[in-house]
């Protein structure tokens, strides 16, 4: 019994004194003792999610504002029919004022009554004008006695998963995995190189593999916290769904974090100064912020760019995260995305090791 306790104490002591443990502890300490890094990694994505969630929260569509030329006395029937429709805001205006309101966009459509009927003036390129055209016509026709030949029953639904916040939370998660992976690793390594600390470590019997492994281990720890914070926050506050399996989500996050870590290693492999690595990191990350569908769908870009956009690692990560969280997709069904992410991981890691400057 006593021997067992002693042996356990010995094993514990040995573990804490092992280089991989000490190196990983250094990574931890350096991170938690840099408050700005903690802010950008944990707090910033949550603040961004709050901002975007509030700005783009689900609201009922705005009621179109329309105008009727003339006077209530002259067009009593038309105005009454239009005002009976709760989907429209109706103003009765003299001709000049009505034309100006249409020109300046204050009203989406102008109704000009004629002896034989009505005329609609609107810009068919404006979405709300087209909607106003449909609502106005329906109200006027119904007011004049039209009945709908097909009976309709309406059942109103609000589907979680189709809102902007549902789209943006996986995007923010992908962006965060990229930022903390590339910047977190590249900065630490270049900082150590610039201060000649890397060279000093190379003069000890430290294993290079363990040095790199310490970054992987500390990244995995913080990665777990990052994912739990952001996904948990989205689920609790905005009811963002996680329809796929958590295990599959964990695998996607893990492989993505490793791929971005490998890119961070590649970015840092030759650079000697902090200024140099800042520029290079931005050069690598900026196109992905724009093109990889963080804040809006990558499908908005022209078709000719799509193959290149889909080859970017962050596009694959965002697509895989959205498929898992919003559509409940299995790992197998995001196989294409996982292949792209894994390819980046392998190519970046092998290239980084081949050209890495260890001093």
């Amino acid at each position, binding site marked *: 019994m006593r021997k067992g306790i002693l042996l356990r104490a010995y094993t514990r002591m040995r573990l804490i004194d092992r280089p991989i443990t000490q190196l990983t502890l250094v990574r931890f300490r*350096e991170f938690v003792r840099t408050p700005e890094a903690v802010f950008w990694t944990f707090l910033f994505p949550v603040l961004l999610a709050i901002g975007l969630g509030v700005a783009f929260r689900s609201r009922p569509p705005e009621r179109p504002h329309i105008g009727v030329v003339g006077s209530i006395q002259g067009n009593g029937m038309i105005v009454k029919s239009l005002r009976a429709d709760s989907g429209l805001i109706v103003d009765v205006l003299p001709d000049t004022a009505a034309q100006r309101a249409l020109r300046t966009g204050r009203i989406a459509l102008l109704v000009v009554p004629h002896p034989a009927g009505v005329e609609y003036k609107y810009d068919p390129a404006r979405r709300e004008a087209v909607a106003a055209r449909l609502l106005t016509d329906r109200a006027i026709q119904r007011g004049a006695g039209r009945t709908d030949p097909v009976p309709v029953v309406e059942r109103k639904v609000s589907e979680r998963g189709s809102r902007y916040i549902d789209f943006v939370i996986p995007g923010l998660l992908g962006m965060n995995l990229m930022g903390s992976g590339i910047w977190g690793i590249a900065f630490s390594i270049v900082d150590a190189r610039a201060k*000649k600390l890397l060279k000093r470590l190379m003069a000890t019997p430290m294993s290079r593999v363990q040095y790199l492994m310490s970054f992987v281990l500390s990244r995995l720890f913080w990665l777990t916290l990052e994912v739990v914070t952001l996904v948990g926050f989205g689920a609790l506050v905005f009811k963002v769904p996680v329809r796929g399996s958590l295990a599959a989500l964990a695998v996607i996050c893990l492989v993505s974090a490793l791929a971005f870590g490998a890119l961070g290693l590649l970015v840092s492999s030759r650079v000697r100064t902090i200024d140099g690595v800042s520029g290079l990191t931005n050069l690598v990350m900026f196109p992905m912020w724009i093109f990889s569908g963080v804040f809006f769908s990558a499908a908005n870009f022209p078709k000719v760019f799509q193959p290149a956009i889909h080859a970017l690692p962050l596009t694959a990560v965002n697509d895989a995260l959205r498929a898992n969280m919003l559509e409940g997709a299995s790992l197998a069904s995001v196989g294409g995305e996982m292949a792209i992410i894994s390819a980046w991981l392998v190519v970046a890691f092998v290239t980084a090791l081949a050209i890495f400057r260890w001093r």
Partner: protein
Amino acid sequence: MVTATHALTVKGLRKSYGDVVAVDGLDLDVSLGECFGLLGPNGAGKTTTIEICEGLLSRDAGDVVVLGKTWEHNGDHLRQQLGIQLQDTQLSEKLTVLETLRLFRSFYRRGRTVDEVIDIVEIGEKRNARIGSLSGGQKQRLAVACALVGDPELLFLDEPTTGLDPQSRRQMWKLIEDLQATGRTIVLTTHYMEEAERLCDRVAIVDHGRVIARGSPRELIDTIGASHPPPPPKATSATLEDVFVALTGRTLRDE
């Protein structure tokens, strides 16, 4: 040839960076247990030579044998045996003295305890202080402590007192003398002739990548007395500094 009495043997060492020849056929031999000084003006090739001996740089030509072994065949073994303090290394400012020493200690299979090296370099009152809060002298002593954790047989100290105030410099000298007293072999580079004269058993003066004079500080001072004009009237006797300036000239050297 290497004998058991030599801690370091360098023969015909050459190293160039492009067109610039940093080391040009340099020879050295450092005996076990001695404190050997490598002196020379800026850009003379001291640091390049030391870094090749430390296994940090490759060489273009020549032989380097450290503790009877070569870097090509015994790199891992040698890294366990050497204690190294580099010029200009900045240890992570966010870590404490204790955390830094535990990290360095973890790399060595055997060695001193962290508490022992803290006592040796007399930095006990700062053991839990972050490195960012240490003075220049304390940082330098910590750098030496990092070199001592593996209980090295051979210690390389590259300008350990550059930039220190007189008190810190004297504290560092005492530390080096204490290490010498325990029989450690020390290879030291310095700009300060007073330091070399006080600490080194033998010195080599290096210029343009070659050794231009070697011997004990006393021998070199005696030589200069014989072959150069006597020192200015104010000085009471020649110093190693007079030897250095006589051999390397008075022209300013900037790296």
